[in-house]
């Protein structure tokens, strides 16, 4: 982990870390080196990936048209709305 990579990850994740948080994250990555070494010791050359821990039974269903919630309900927890729209700053200059 370098400061340059950390800055890129901050931007990607829409975060802005304080100097103290950056130090802490750098230390965290150092500590994870032990995890990496542990995984390296496991031979996975003949092993398939395991994405799902149990066999998936239902991954598709019939499309059913419904309108379970009103616009007012869906906007109940919104930070800012106006006449049924979500408000954001101007995105097109």
């Amino acid at each position, binding site marked *: 982990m370098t400061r340059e990579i950390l800055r890129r*990850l901050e931007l990607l994740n829409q975060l802005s870390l304080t100097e103290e948080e950056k130090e802490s994250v750098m230390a965290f990555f150092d500590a994870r080196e032990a995890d990496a070494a542990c995984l390296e010791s496991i031979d996975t050359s003949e092993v398939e990936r395991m994405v799902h821990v149990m066999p998936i039974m239902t991954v598709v269903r019939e499309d059913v048209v419904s309108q379970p919630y009103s616009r007012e309900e869906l906007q109940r927890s919104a930070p800012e709305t106006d006449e049924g729209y979500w408000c954001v700053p101007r995105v097109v200059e």
Partner: protein
Amino acid sequence: MSFYNAKAENVSSPSVILDDMILTKDMPTTAGSRMLDSYMSLFDAEAVSKLRAAGYAIAGKAAVGEFAFDLIGESAYGGALVRDGKLVSAACEILLSGEADAAVTLDVNGSVRRASAQSGLVSLKPTYGTVSRFGTVPVACSGECVSVVAETADKCAEIFSVIVGHDAKDGTSLSASQCQAALARASAPKKVCVIEDFLQEVDADVKDKIDAACAAFEKAGATVEKISVPTLLAARAAWNILFSAELCNNVSRYDGVKYGYRAESFSGIDELYTNSRTEAFGKLLKTAIIYGSETLSTENYMKVYDKALRTRRVIAEKFAELFAEYDAVLLPAVSKMAYTEEMVAEKHDLCYVENLYTAPASVTGLPSVVCGGVALIGPALSDGKLLSYAKIVTGEEN
């Protein structure tokens, strides 16, 4: 200091306390985060619907750490809960006070299992897919489970029998017959193994708990063998990578626009996103997000994330070998019987270390019961049997 993020009034009996990761339409769900402070869901989680339909009252929402993946709740927006200098779990404290008959929680990274072990309670992290995750705040979707905590194994079994079942709304839900199979009980196990590799860094009083559990099984007629399976230690490394990657993706939805916290000061849309997330998220969550996104980067995807997925299968196959010979695997649930504020102040990411003992069941989806301060892991769908074995450890059979 409040153990409740929301508390119902005039609660009838029997009652269940939910942790604040489980959606309720009549109480806020905060996930322990400033981001979701006062967030109101439009619907109940499937587990909550089942509990209400079966006549259980919801006593309230217990405080949790931010997105519930920390050590034992210390990363909560409202602060850590401390009693006599020791960190405690809100759900467990509410149970111990007698204010609810059981707790239903989201086990993301083992915090509820650690709390149960330290509180002398019984908890069940069920087989992945037996309890619907519909209506839980998503964090680590490939391993997290809706879990149960209670004072006895029989009470855990009772609550599990209410919330178990296929749910078409959860794409990872198992079939009705598989869910039903998970309820089957048993008498004593014939053979149990203790994985010695997990005893290297635990305190003496944790070893005492392991010894007491072994003695109880032997007294019940089981054969107990201590064996070494060092491969299982890799479960933690694999789980740390997988859950962080999933967490990073899941919390990317919180942007301060549609719901949740929005920063007061911003000059454009990018600053709105960044300031809202930066101000609302805590230090541990930010660390996990950065780590998770790095494991998914072009440079690291195959070397780190893909490697963790393959290691997950190695761990699962190793457990399958063990279950060909043993009915249950016995492990510590924690390295020590109490955590202090100083420990997490000194090392805020201790949950990435202490989950050595909970990661094997998290990464494989296997059921795990914590009882008498120790953890039992069994084959998939052996949930009811593990709860029967737990009664031997806790002395409920006597």
